[in-house]
């Protein structure tokens, strides 16, 4: 809750004026796309039954978006409010501080609660881990890391001719029980049906 509040609280601090200039166009588009994805993606009932519950967009890792969400932060998607949560990347679970563990658990819970989870490039190394974390939780994983789809991610941003494109892993989507509309699929530059190579592993 407090994290939520904090997350909510933090973001406005980013000066708006400079939002456009500091945040690259790319991430503006990606932010818009992110929002748009939500329109073409259906979550299962248990995830999104209650209309009062907002759609949570989590950003894990170092947020490249900056103030990109600023213009659309009050926009509703499918009638629901959209909440942006920022998470820190998964830490190594070396020492388990009880307090940290609880915090961690809480954060994981929070992460799992997201509808959309954007995994930032900063989490490239922990990609699989992060994906696996939410793979049972009907989370639409989005990233712009290369090989994201092979790692089990669902939607991956790619750049083509200065234009932001994306590719989709339908298997992953199926696994996550997230239904991706054909329209979206059509627009994807590449649609793969690939189990993650590390599936068995995890």
């Amino acid at each position, binding site marked *: 809750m407090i994290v939520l509040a904090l997350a909510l609280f933090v973001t406005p601090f980013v000066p708006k004026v400079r939002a456009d200039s500091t945040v690259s166009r790319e991430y503006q*588009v990606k932010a*818009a*796309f992110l929002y*748009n994805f*939500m*329109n*073409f993606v259906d979550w299962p009932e248990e995830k999104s039954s209650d209309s009062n519950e907002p759609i949570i967009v989590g950003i894990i890792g170092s947020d490249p978006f900056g103030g990109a969400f600023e213009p659309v932060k009050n*926009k*509703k*998607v*499918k*009638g629901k409010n959209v909440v942006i949560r920022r998470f820190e990347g998964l830490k190594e679970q070396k020492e388990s501080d009880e307090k940290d563990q609880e915090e961690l658990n809480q954060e994981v819970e929070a992460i799992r609660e997201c509808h959309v989870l954007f995994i930032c490039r900063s989490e490239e190394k922990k990609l699989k881990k992060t994906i696996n974390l939410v793979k049972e939780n009907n989370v639409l994983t989005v990233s712009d890391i290369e090989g994201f789809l092979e790692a089990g991610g669902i939607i991956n941003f790619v750049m083509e001719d200065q*234009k*932001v*494109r*994306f590719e989709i892993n339908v298997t992953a989507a199926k696994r996550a029980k997230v239904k991706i*509309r054909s*329209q*979206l699929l*059509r*627009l994807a530059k590449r649609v793969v049906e690939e189990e993650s190579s590390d599936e068995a592993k995890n």
Partner: protein
Amino acid sequence: MSILQNMAIKHKLILIIMLACITGLFLAGTAFIGWERNTCRDGMMRNLSTQAEMIAENCKAALAFQDAQDAKETLQALHVEPSIVFGCVYNKENRLFTSYYRDYAEIKVHPSKFQEGGFSFADGFLTVFKPIVLDGQTIGTVCLRSDMSPMYAMLKRNISIILIVLFLSSLAAFLVSSRLQKVISGPILSLAEVAKAVSGKKDYSTRAIKQSNDEVGLLIDAFNEMLEQIQHRDLELVDAKNQLEVRVEQRTAELTTANEQLTREVAERKRAEEQLRKAEERYRTQFEGALDAIFIADAETGIITDCNPAATRLVGREKSELVGQHQRIIHPPEVIAGEFSNSFKEHLREKQGLTLDTQVITKKGEIRDVAIKANLLEIRGKKLLQGIFRDITEHKKAEKRQGQLLDQLEKTNQELKDFAHIVSHDLKAPLRGINTLVKWISSDYADKFDEEGQEQMNLLLSRVDRMHNLIDGILQYSRVGRVKEEKTQVNLNELMPSIIDTLAPPENITITVEDELPMIECEKTRIIQVFQNLLSNAIKYMDKPQGQIRVACMEEDGCWKFSVADNGPGIEERYFEKIFQMFQTLRPRDEFESTGVGLTVVKKIVETHGGRIWVESKVGEGSTFLFTVPKRRASVEEEKLLVSLNA
């Protein structure tokens, strides 16, 4: 319009039905087409809208994810619909995202402005805009434009269908109406036929046949009814006309006669008026110019209203002094009793039209005798008494004098008669004496006388006799007229024989009565005297050996003309008058003993009877004495006069 009016009913009906059908069909067709067009437009619009929506839906993702290519591909699907001219997607900033143009589109125009979520029909194109909504937010707009070719095609098709249907329906309507118009026009035409026939032939006995029970049937009924009435009226009219002609003739005749009568009456009236006017004029002239005085006074009041100049002269007053005065002022008080004069009163009472003798008094006070003849006049409702006054003062005087003279005359006459009688008697007496004496002397002293003496004595006797006869004659003459006899009806035929007998004519004289003698009214004795005298004269003076005396009678000028004709010596003309005078003889008394009185007496007798006597004679051959006796009885007054004159 007039063409329409002049068409036959059949054609009219067909035309009407056809027009109705065609109009109906046309309207239906038009409505249909209109509705179809609208439907088509709606359809097209919906179609296009739907397509736009579909495109929008399909391009949502592409637009959301800026995939123009994908969107373009989506748009390419539009080529399936050939009517779509172009389709394009605009992004949020209304900048063209992607577009599709039909290959053979003439116009490649970017619409500059568009309505969001709307459509427009403009310039022969349907343009539809649909917002691309992603999650409640418009991220762009789809614009599709299609031409109206489908609609035109549809319209064309529909119109042709409609036209064909119209044509076929018209044909059918024509056929059907041609057939069915007979239902209406048939009865009407037949009625028209009948009407034409009726008016052409003037045969009002024809009737139209009722074929249906609708208004035409009613019409036919009414028509027949009318014909019935007309026929009836026609007959009546003909009848009336004939009657009228008769009456007109009658009336004309009547009028003509009346007119003639009227004309006559008017002429008569005019004449009458003229006559009246003339009469009035005459009256006025007479009134004014009358020698007798005329007074007109009001019968009730007695006021004099008018008088003529003679009247003014009579009473010596001016007209102004008379008119307005009471009538009694012209009478002396002796003849006035009360208000009015006696004569006035009497005239009013009873004696109108009668002449009353009374007196008037002049202004100077002179009294004059007048004879008044008065009459009642009624002029303008007023009763007036008109009196004609004749001044009889002189007349009365004359009358008086006449009376006096007559008295005197009578007295003288009587004296004369007496004288004659006395004288004759007185004269006779000594004669008788003389006669006796002479006789004595001649007888006593016969022996003393010689022949001469005796002869002278005889002469003396004859002279005495003569004197005696003369005196007798005078006496006789005087008797005639003095001794009046009753006039009786005398049958001369019966009388003549006795007269002739008494005369005892000698054998050589024959008296014949040639004609049937009439019955006359006269004094018997006198008429005997006449005939006796005449006959005896004829006998006496007969100088022929065979004497013939003829008595004849004839009617002439209301008188009996008797004639006694003889073949005696005749009389010279110069003596024709003389012989009737007293004591005239034609021969000396020595030849014929005659008193000379006979014819005078006869003349007197004849003239007393109102006739006259004259003679016609030729010396040596004979004489005819003629005398007349009027047939009619002379009036008493005439007789009196005759008597007194002849006394």
